[in-house]
Structure formats: C-alpha cells, structure tokens
C-alpha cells in the first residue's frame, strides 16, 4: 500500500472506531441530537412569539441560523473527544502501530462529520415540523447543506487545534464556551443584525457565523425582499465568502492540528 491509500484505510478504521464511540456515549449523542431539537423548539416558540422580521415568518428566518449554530456546537465534539483520548493511553497504542499518523485526526474529523450530517437531518426534520420551508431550487438546497457540512468539517479542525493546544477536557470546554457563545449571539443568526447598535452591528456583520447564516438563507431561499439588504461586504457575497472561510480554516488548521498532535502525544 502506498502512503495515500494507507492514510485513507487507516483514517476509515479510526473513523469507524469514533463512530462506535459516539453511538455508545449518551452525552455525545445527546448533544448531537437533543441540542438541535431543543434549540429549534425553544427559539421557534419562545423567541418566535416576540421577535418579528419584516416580510417573512421568524421561524423561516431562524432555522438557517440554528443550522449554523448546530454545526459550531457539533464540531466541538472533535476537540472534546481528542482531549478525552489524550488522557487515556490509546494514542500510545496507535503510535506503536504501523499506521499513518495523520489517520487519527482524519478519522476523528470524518466521524464527527458523519455525526453532523445526522444532526442536520434531525434539525431539518424538526424545522419542517415547525414550519420552515425551502423556497429555492433543489440544487441550491443541496448546495446549502453541502456548504454547512464543509463548514462543519473545517471547523472540526479548528476545535481539534484548540484541544491539542489545551489538552484537558475542562479547559477545552471553558474556552469553547467562551468563544462560541459570543460568536453565535453577536451575529444575524437569531435576529436582524442591521438593527443592532453600531459597534455590535459591525462585529455581527463581519462575524463568520453571520456570513454562513446569510449564505444558508440565500441557498434555502429564506430571505425576504422586505428586509434591508445588508451592505457589509461579507454579507453581500455570503456564499463565496463562506467558501473562502472554509478554505482558510482548512489551510491554517489542518497543518497546525497535525503539528500539535505530534507534539501532544510524543511527550
């Protein structure tokens, strides 16, 4: 076997292991499936009853934002499980085997992608139940889900990097919460960001979460002509800028996570 096929085969072996682990860990499954359900219901019924967006139902406006939020939370599984594994001896076992070293991270991110797919399916179903609809062409809708999953995969490498730098589940969870909450809430995911006061509005407009949310709304057709057209550059070109973000995340964090993994396990 050459290096490439070895990496693919080993990555798949590791991904299968991680998928089994997810299936057997109620806490991980819970966050992957229960979170989205709770969020859809809570935002749709609690916030939905007081927030209004011009020209469309709040629920239709909301669901793409919830998709992005679920991706951000789901991708944290990668970092979190890596910190758990670092505390056990399993990486010693892997490193004593003739496998491709990169297969550990490739396998982990791929299995988390599979989990994110499952979570998006559950959420889309929940969305349909509460009144969300796709108003674009099927092709665009597929692109919308594809974009979300690419983002999920790229973001997994980011959380892997953070986890391998911090190395303990506690510190990872603290940082993850501290970073992801402002990211999710200072954005257009739950409300119309153009109505925020100036400094928050600028932060929200340049926040990648807003870019991905805007891109998802466009691709699912959940936009309304009655709403002000955002004039910030990333929001006017949401789909290409999203792709750019994905490319940047992958180019920076795939090598960085790989380097940090080597350092973390060879101590």
């Amino acid at each position: 076997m050459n290096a490439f096929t070895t990496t693919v085969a080993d990555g798949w072996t590791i991904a299968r292991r991680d998928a089994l682990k997810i299936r057997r860990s109620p806490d991980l499954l819970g966050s992957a499936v229960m979170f989205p359900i709770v969020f859809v219901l809570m935002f749709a019924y609690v916030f939905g009853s007081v927030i209004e967006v011009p020209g469309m139902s709040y629920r239709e406006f909301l669901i793409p934002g919830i998709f992005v939020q679920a991706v951000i939370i789901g991708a944290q599984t990668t970092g979190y499980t890596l910190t758990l594994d670092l505390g056990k001896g399993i990486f010693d076992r892997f490193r004593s085997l003739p496998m491709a070293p990169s297969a550990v991270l490739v396998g982990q991110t791929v299995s988390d992608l599979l989990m994110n797919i499952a979570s998006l399916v559950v959420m889309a179903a929940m969305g349909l139940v509460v009144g969300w609809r796709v108003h674009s062409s099927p092709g665009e809708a597929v692109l919308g889900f594809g974009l979300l999953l690419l983002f999920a995969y790229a973001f997994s490498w980011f959380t892997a990097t953070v986890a391998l730098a911090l190395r303990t589940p506690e510190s990872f969870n603290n940082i993850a919460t501290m970073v992801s909450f402002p990211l999710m809430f200072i954005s257009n995911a739950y409300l119309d960001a153009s109505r925020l006061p100036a400094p928050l509005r600028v932060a929200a407009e340049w926040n990648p979460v807003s870019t991905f949310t805007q891109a998802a709304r466009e691709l699912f057709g959940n936009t309304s002509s009655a709403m002000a057209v955002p004039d910030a550059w990333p929001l006017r070109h949401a789909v290409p800028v999203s792709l750019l973000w994905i490319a940047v995340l992958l180019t920076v964090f795939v090598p960085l996570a790989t380097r940090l993994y080597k350092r973390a396990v060879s101590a």
Partner: protein
Amino acid sequence: MSDAITAEGLVKRYGEVTALDGLGFSVPQGSVLALLGPNGAGKTTAVRVLTTLVAPDAGRATVAGCDIVRDARRLRERIGLSGQYAAVDEHLTGAENLEMVGRLYHLGARRSRARARELLERFDLAGAADRPVKGYSGGMRRRIDLAGALVADPPVLFLDEPTTGLDPRARAALWDTISELVAGGSTLLLTTQYMDEADHLADRILVVDHGRAIAHGTPDELKDQVGGNRVAVTVSDAAEMETARQALAWVAVGAMQTAPESLRITVPVTDGPGALREALGRLADEGIRVRDAGLRRPTLDDVYLTLTGHRAPGTDEQAREAVR
C-alpha cells in the same frame, strides 16, 4: 545468532530528571531479556524509546534491524507493545479493540476478525468479547492489552510489567503463552517487578538503576556474582528477633535481610554447611527457639538487594505467593 534489539548509550531527559543515562544492551534473536529495577529506574522510558513512542536525546538503537529514529514506520510493523498502562478504548468491546489493532497492522478485515477471536480465546476473554472494555476488571484490561501486542504475531515483543495486576491463574497462563511465543522464535523484552518472573522467563537479566545498567547476565551468573550461600533462619517469637540477629552477625559476610512479618532472618555466608552449623550453635547458646533453618542459594532478590542497595519492589515472597 544476530541481535533483535541493540541499544547504545541511550539518553533521555525530562527536565531535571535523567530517565536514561547512557543505557546500552543487546538482545539476541529468539531470547528474552528482563529489565529489572526499582520504581523510576527508567524501565518504561527504555521501552518507550525502543518502541518509537519517544525520541532519545542521545544514543542509537535498532529493533528488528530498523533504526528507532530513521526507520520508525517499518520498525512498527515488526513489534508488538503492551505498555505499563493498558492502552485500550473503553467504549469499544474487547473484540472491536483487537479487530481495530489488526486493521491498523493492515491484516485486512477478515484476518483481523479471526485473529481477534483467536486471541480472546487464548486470553480467556471469549465470554467478555462483546462487552465494552469499560466494564472490564483491571486484570481483564491488562489481558486485552497484552492480546493487542500479539495481534500481528510480531517478531519482537515489548511487554512493560505484563503480569502486574493479574491473578495467579492469569499470570501462569501468560507465562505459558510467553514461553510458547519464545519457543516459536519471538524475541521479548519485558520489564518486571517480580524476581521469580525474571528468573522463570528471562534468558538474561539487565538490572537498571538511575537510567544505567548496573548488572547484566543470566539469572545464574547474577546469582554467582553476588556469591555464596544464604543461611535463612525463622525464629518462633518476635521478641527474639534482635538477639537472633546479634547471634547471626557472627557468621554474616554481608548485609543481613530481616523480614519481621515472617520472623525470618537471612544472612550471606561463605562456607555453607559450616556456617549453618555455627549459626545454629550460637542461636542455641542464646536459648533461641528456632522454628526453621536452612541453607539456600542466593535468589534474584538477593542480587537486587546487593546491587541496588534496596529491596526489590515486589519481593520474592509476594511474587511466589501470587503464583501459588
């Protein structure tokens, strides 16, 4: 026969601590070397360096003909490792763990599965094969980890304290397995806390302390190095221990070992039978009631005590207790 493992001047530092301080040795193909040494001697570090888990700061080593630094990938195809702490996945079943290891050795799906079942049988884990390892006992984890080292039938095996935490039956079974493997031509480096384990399994023993080799040889050579016989006396009353020690000091040619729990005193002597006669005479003069007395060859425990200045971490007695 050629050497399966060679190590030269291995140095590994962790900050202030020098875990390996110029360790060197070789293990001929098809033989068993036991690394023996107190806690913190550097045994685990030596195993980790030789299995490519950590890079040495200085020195060179080859395993199965592969350099540990330059040829790490090829080396890993030829070794099996069971570390001091079980490296298994809690959420996977015993069978899934072994199957995964087989696939990562690139045995293919079908052979990995067959091999997993075979090893589960061999390590008496067939009944627990399909339960997540999370629910295994300490000894069962140890065994599944050992099985992991054997999945690919590698020519060179590294087992770091393989029998620590095993019950007597599992320990005896592992000894048999190891003997079979070695009879089949495998080379083994093991570390152990137990003198009689080294005595039983190893062709050669390397006594390590402070990251250096302080003695090397076959069990018999090491015993000869320490020399002479031992007079071992068991008194019947703890109150008489001190008097007995003083009486026995007359015949001792080295440090006495006292085991207060078992009321036993062991003294190295030069002339065996004569010394025993004299010892018994002196004890009788003091009016000490002797429950048991005898002459014995030095054990590895004696070797260890003489060489490192402290008792072995797991004494002979405990070890034998455990095997019984």
